[in-house]
């Protein structure tokens, strides 16, 4: 994208005189500004989303007063945070205290450079994209330890230490599950990984159930790996049930206890950037990234018809058991199905790959993360380690072996 942008800048006669390096620099600046804007806007939208999801799950309404349905509430909150005083405790380690949040933010923003938003929308097409994302995102722990230590507060210290132990422990199973996918594709390039998941095929190659060629449906081991990755990633981004570094009922606010104003907002920004990053990785690696779930125009029509039929039958089943259920999900799928059958252009659009599908998948994953957060209690720190080292790590190792054996049995790789 940077190359394309540079070429585009050079194509203007007035700007051509600038020369190649300057055009490159300019386009780099534009792209990084775009990514940062994406992260910032994304955080604002997601905070609103999270508040609404949590409120609806908790039989509340959530923010309702600023803007229609409270849609501007997070904007107002962001403005309030920017105006607040940036308090630095007297006994804090000032330099570390000041740069800690920035380290976390930078580490979580720069990872987006390698994320393919669509087949063309990609800042840097790296051949080691996956490796880059995983390695850069683990710098976050450095910032957390800096912030926690520099605050000179016992609660912050506890939060930082817990966080360091947790993130490092969960890096390992997460890395191993990603390696399983890399073993199938044979490349670390995220764009290549997405491209390998196009089209529609049978479930696990032999069960006659037409499903997209996503890696989650590629073989049973990768199916399991997707969930293991999701659990590990939840832990890595410190979300419930693994939110022990900032567990508010125990450690007040963990490593963020002493922060206020803008710097506190930066923690929030990076928290949601990380959540988004994880959602992107899950959808790229396991759910086909920007690929459409439908192979073609007819596939989209039939696919949505099946979804609607299932939804209607489920609703009728629940109603027959005299339980309360909303009809909104059925209604929405019915509307989409009708639109797909009545307007062929809509069906074509549904079947074509692009940013829409990418964002839909990301939104679903983020919703899942929120769903976890507003349902589960929190694990204790030693139980967290137990889950990591004694449950997830062995399973992911067995999974890696299983993927290799599966590949050998199905003849996708030969020795």
């Amino acid at each position, binding site marked *: 994208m940077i190359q394309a942008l540079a070429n585009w800048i050079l194509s203007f006669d007035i700007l051509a005189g600038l020369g190649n390096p300057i055009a490159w620099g300019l386009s780099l600046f534009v792209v990084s500004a775009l990514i940062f804007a994406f992260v910032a806007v994304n955080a604002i939208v997601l905070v609103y989303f999270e508040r609404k999801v949590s409120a609806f799950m908790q039989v509340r309404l959530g923010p309702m007063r600023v803007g229609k349905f409270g849609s501007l509430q997070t904007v107002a909150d962001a403005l309030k945070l920017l105006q607040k005083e940036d308090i630095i405790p007297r006994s804090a380690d000032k330099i570390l205290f000041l740069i800690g949040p920035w380290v976390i933010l930078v580490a979580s923003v720069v990872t987006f450079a390698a994320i393919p938003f669509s087949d063309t929308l990609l800042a840097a097409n790296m051949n080691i994209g996956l490796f880059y994302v995983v390695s850069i995102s683990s710098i976050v722990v450095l910032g957390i330890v800096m912030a926690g230590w520099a605050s000179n507060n*016992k609660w912050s210290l506890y939060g930082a230490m817990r966080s360091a132990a947790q993130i490092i422990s969960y890096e390992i199973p997460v890395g191993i599950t990603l390696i399983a996918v890399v073993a199938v594709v044979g490349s670390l390039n995220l764009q290549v990984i997405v491209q390998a998941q196009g089209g529609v095929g049978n479930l696990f190659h032999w069960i006659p159930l037409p499903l997209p060629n996503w890696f989650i449906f590629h073989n049973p081991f990768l199916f399991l790996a997707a969930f293991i990755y999701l659990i590990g990633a939840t832990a890595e981004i410190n979300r419930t049930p693994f939110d022990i570094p900032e567990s508010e009922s125990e450690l007040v606010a963990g490593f963020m206890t002493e922060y206020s104003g803008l710097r506190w907002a930066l923690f929030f920004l990076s928290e949601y950037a990380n959540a988004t990053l994880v959602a992107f990785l899950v959808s790229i690696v396991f759910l086909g990234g920007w690929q459409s779930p439908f192979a073609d125009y007819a596939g989209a029509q039939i696919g949505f018809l099946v979804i609607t039929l299932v939804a209607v039958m489920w609703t009728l089943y629940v109603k027959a058991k005299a339980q309360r259920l909303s009809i909104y999900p059925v209604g929405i799928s019915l509307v989409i199905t009708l639109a797909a059958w009545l307007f062929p252009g809509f069906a074509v659009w549904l079947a074509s790959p692009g940013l829409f599908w990418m964002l839909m998948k990301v939104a679903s994953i983020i919703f899942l993360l929120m769903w976890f957060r507003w*349902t589960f*209690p929190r694990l*204790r720190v030693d*139980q967290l380690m137990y889950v990591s080292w004694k449950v997830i790590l062995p399973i992911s190792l067995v999974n890696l072996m299983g993927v290799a054996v599966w590949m050998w049995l199905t003849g996708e790789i030969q020795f």
Partner: protein
Amino acid sequence: MGRLHAEEMILNMGPQHPSTHGVLRLKLRTDGEIVSHIEPVIGYLHRSFEKHAENLEYQQVTPFCGRCDYLAAMGSEHGYAMAVEKMMGIELPERVEYLRVIFAELQRIASHLVAVGTFGLDVGAITPFIYCFRERELILDLFEMASGARLLYNYIWIGGLAHDIPPGFVEKTYEFLDNFDTRVAEYNQILTGNKIFIERAADIGVMTPEVAINYGVTGPSLRASGVNIDIRRTQPYSIYDRFDFDVPLGEGAQGTVGDSWDRYYVRVREMEESARIIRQALDQLPVEGDVKSAIPRRIRPPKGEIYSRSENARGELGYYVVSNGKNVPLRVKMRSPAFSNLSVINEIGQGWMISDVIAILGSLDIVLGEIDR
């Protein structure tokens, strides 16, 4: 390179801390995450209830009783009213007794809902807390209907009630009880059976019956240790001997008898039992009767002293009232259950992690207003 110096760290938990249920301060001596000693520091919510009582007329003390245990104000008022009535030898009308039981048990449900919800909150589950508060609001609606207040009622007066219940109250209570069972099932689904919750609560902070009795622990926390003492059953006061209800005991279903999970689950089951009592009381409630007929014109108990016990939501609530024959009590001492329940925390919380100490504290269900008084 010198030897690494390692020592225990003193961690101040509170008085400003999200999980200390008010303004409790715990001085924790920690070795990493492990807590080796817990020292509760209380008194941040001291409002000198007992001194107030020495300067107020008997009836004027009632609102202050509710302010001690603000989550179970009806129970507190009931205990105080019974003490003074016993001194004066007042015979209450049947209807008053039934209504008092109904309100005390509704209050027990409301209080346990807070206990259950905040315990979930302490271990990180936010949503069940909101569900519990939704049901608590319904109970507070009933209280508001009857007394006009939602939290601090001053409804149970010496010798009767402030007002009779309004029309429609009984129907609304039945309606609440009918829905309540499904709500409890919901809590069990989202919290009680949850594997993470069980991991966090089962086997944590085991309180053996000996420890519980030595420290004077009462109420659900004692019964969770398997000790079958419920004043409603062992020394029935009011008209509790007329109702058929079980006393839930800790069984160690998910771990050891007397662990945090048992203390939690005893409360959940007590809510169901309270619902049973309310249902029976509503069925038998006498239609006729003036709730104010036995209210004495002048409250001047004869010279003497009395200790009256009742089973409040948190345990044995005792009032020791000394009268010198005047209209102002000479002394009112309150035996607060939460105070004794809190004192056990060092015994059962030692050697657990910081997170567990919070879970144990949550499972003891303390109210600082009652501890500090």
